[in-house]
């Protein structure tokens, strides 16, 4: 089976394209700057101006240095798709894609991400057309309460790309060819998706959904 070269962060690519094509919504002032001001000096010491590109839109923000990417998304930009399950890197509910790679946004200080491109669950669909993983999750009923779901889906986008790029996992056979794409078996999917907890126990269906899409994209076996 020949893997395709389709970028896993297709959503991010699309969103960036949208910004380039000049929807007129290229730059938004974040709500952070409009928040109740604290004494100017303290604010200057404790906050910084930065730009985050989220789902193809550039946001100019002045942010408290303690603010995580997750809290920027949820509390400042109104993008509440990324969830806060633990705030400590233990559950994966906050998973987003940073420059196309999955990351726990609760563990990233926004000030350290100046200029980066972030794709959240809100940026995956193409208008009304769902991302294939979103479709597969609905069809397979790979969700119940839905709270882990955005993180699962963003994580799965990352998994497909990592497999295509040849990243091995704990269960990848030691004799697998180096550098080539990794075949996403059910075991590979289970292993690679284990950073995203689901207390509702949707795992078997999540594995099926990811497998469906990876099969369609030619990176499964």
């Amino acid at each position: 089976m020949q893997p395709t070269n389709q970028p896993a962060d297709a959503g991010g690519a699309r969103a960036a394209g949208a910004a380039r094509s000049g929807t007129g919504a290229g730059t938004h002032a974040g709500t952070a700057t409009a928040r109740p001001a604290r004494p100017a000096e303290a604010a200057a010491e404790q906050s910084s101006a930065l730009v985050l590109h989220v789902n193809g839109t550039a946001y100019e923000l002045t942010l408290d240095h303690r603010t995580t990417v997750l809290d920027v998304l949820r509390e400042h930009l109104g993008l509440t798709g990324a969830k806060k399950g633990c705030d400590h890197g233990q559950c994966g509910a906050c998973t987003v894609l940073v420059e196309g790679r999955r990351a726990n946004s609760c563990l990233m200080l926004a000030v350290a991400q100046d200029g980066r491109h972030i794709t959240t669950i809100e940026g995956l669909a193409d208008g009304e057309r769902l991302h294939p993983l979103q479709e597969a999750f609905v069809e397979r009923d790979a969700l119940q309460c839905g709270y882990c779901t955005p993180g699962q889906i963003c994580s799965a986008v990352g998994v497909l790309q990592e497999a295509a790029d040849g990243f091995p996992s704990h269960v990848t056979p030691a004799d697998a060819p180096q550098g080539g794409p990794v075949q996403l078996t059910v075991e590979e999917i289970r292993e690679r998706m284990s950073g995203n907890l689901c207390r509702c126990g949707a795992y078997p269906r999540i594995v099926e959904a990811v497998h469906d899409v990876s099969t369609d994209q030619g990176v499964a076996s």
Partner: protein
Amino acid sequence: MSPRTFPLGPPPYPLGEPLVRREGREKVTGAARYAAEHTPPNCAYGWPVAAGIPRGRVAAVDTAEALALPGVITVLTHENAPRLAAAEDPTLSLLQEDRVPHRGWYVALAVADTIETARAAAEAVRVTYETDDDADVLLRADHPRMYEPEKVNGGYPGTRERGDFEGAFAAAPVTVDATYHVPPLHNHPMEPHASTAHWSEGHLTVHDSSQGATKVCEDLAALFKLDTSEITVVSEHVGGGFGSKGTPRPQVVLAVMAARHTGRPVKVSVPRREMPAVVGHRAPTIQRVRLGAGNDGVITALSHEIATHTSTVTEFVEQAAVPARVMYASPNSRTVHRVVPLDVPTPSWMRAPGECPGMYALESAMDELAVQLGMDPIELRMRNEPDTEPDSDRAFSSRHLVGALRDGAERFRWLPRDPRPGVRREGDLLLGTGVAASTYPVLIAASAAEAHADRDGTFRIRVNATDIGTGARTVLAQIAAGALMAPEDRVRIEIGNSDLPPAMLAGGSAGIGSWGWVVHKACTALRARLRDHVGPLPADGLTVAADTRQETSERSPYARHSFGATFAEVQVDTVTGEIRVRRLMGVFAAGRILNPRTARSQFIGGMTMGLGMALTEDSEVDPEFGGFAGCDLAGYHVPACADAPRIEAYWVEEEDPHLNPMGSKGIGEIGIVGTAAAVTNAVWHATGVRLRDIPLTPDKVLPHL
């Protein structure tokens, strides 16, 4: 009514069809908003301060440092917090007095402009305590303060006796006498408990992560001395609960207090690691099971004795001996609960309270009895099928445990099975299979609903049901469409808001039975009205209201329970002690299955949680410091994707006319019930070692291999 003015639409009616979850699209696109995801303008953030002592009182709270931080609005403590009316649930009497009943009890709330500042302020609050040295936190079966409660959770009697257990046990040729330990367990829904409270023009709106907004609204009204008409509680999307959001939890009281005190909207989320101490947990149980049987396997004596803890705040008794009153015929039986109030967080409901831990012990003991008898464990269960519910002598409305066992045995390829333990090797691995039965009662509570027909041929159903991930929204639409004989896509469902007709909370697997019944009733009445209606509908359509107070007030003459059989195959690594489940299968007899797609997810989800209970989920009260030692998702291991093997759920066809118009039993909890015992019985079959202290983590297993 003429079909032209009001087309009802053709069959087929969608009850029993695997419809896709209605809110699926919102959930996979991130559009579904949960309680903490509503940020009214000028919203402030509350961050709680948890007590750092095992027991005592707050001597002083120094808030100066916290208040000096830029952006801090206030710090609420027992000295300045709004006074509350006496609470029906004393765990909600927050910041009212200086007493600290256990570690983790909330003693203050910092409120600030931003989440970062609120958190820093909470850390800057200096609390001085007077600590009691003699905090008592350890559960022992022989604890001197143990007592037998009159009632246990669910309202069941604490103790039941039939015949002469001691005499029959002494006379039985084959006996089992074993004690099983279940640790405290934590619900840990993925969405932490959160509330956003907002006063506007004298009206309080609260977005709360709750399994039942009606109850939250009623309790807030009582606590804050308001009328329920002055409060709207919204729980539209809820990120799981598993019992821990059944009734209001501290965050909603704190959020409303802070909003009232500051005059601003306030959002409060319980930090993950503080959840075990304030949202309830499954109480640990020490369970002694004694079975006496004839050589034919027929049980003549059955005793199940529970020792458990509650807190000093309120009495909650995990009803773990109750399923032994339902499962097997025995002329001589004794089921007893004993409880001791300790200086521990208050236990509460966790998925299948009572049945889940109780059936772990009972079904383990049944396996031990089968081994003693040299009998297949399925055969043993069949030999002890009762004709009526043993405890009450009521006829079962339906009972297909045998059908589930048979069906499962076939699907799982249970036979041929070499009963000898420790003989199936694959390299370093030992393999084994196990089975256990499950049960869960059918509970139904009064609810109200409205069904509305619009002029354009669409319908609107209003009922304060809650969809915590069960698929309730979808299944209610199916029930409504069936009763209206209308296509499902013409039915709109409004749930998750206390302004809607009040309804049972999402708990006790009673949701669909309770809500579905009243929705069916309202829709049936509406359909009759439409049939009789002449001419076009009035401009504002037609509305019918219904409630099921009368139907649900009558006690059923039948014993009504779901049953099931769970099968597991495990591998035990003799080098590392690691146990992995290879296959898990459940077959359930739970009445009519209304939506196979969402039902399967419910069953599998319950089984996955049971797998965690068997192998990974462990908690303990710290003997020195009180509180739970492993509080967060790093210290308390809920199953991850790689832990979950092939998990399959099936059901047997079950017609039961004694339930509700849909013929459905609840399905949210039974999946967890038999799983732990099926897995641990399989571990015995793999290794020949009987471990009675779950979870079976490698450190416990390895010394025996």
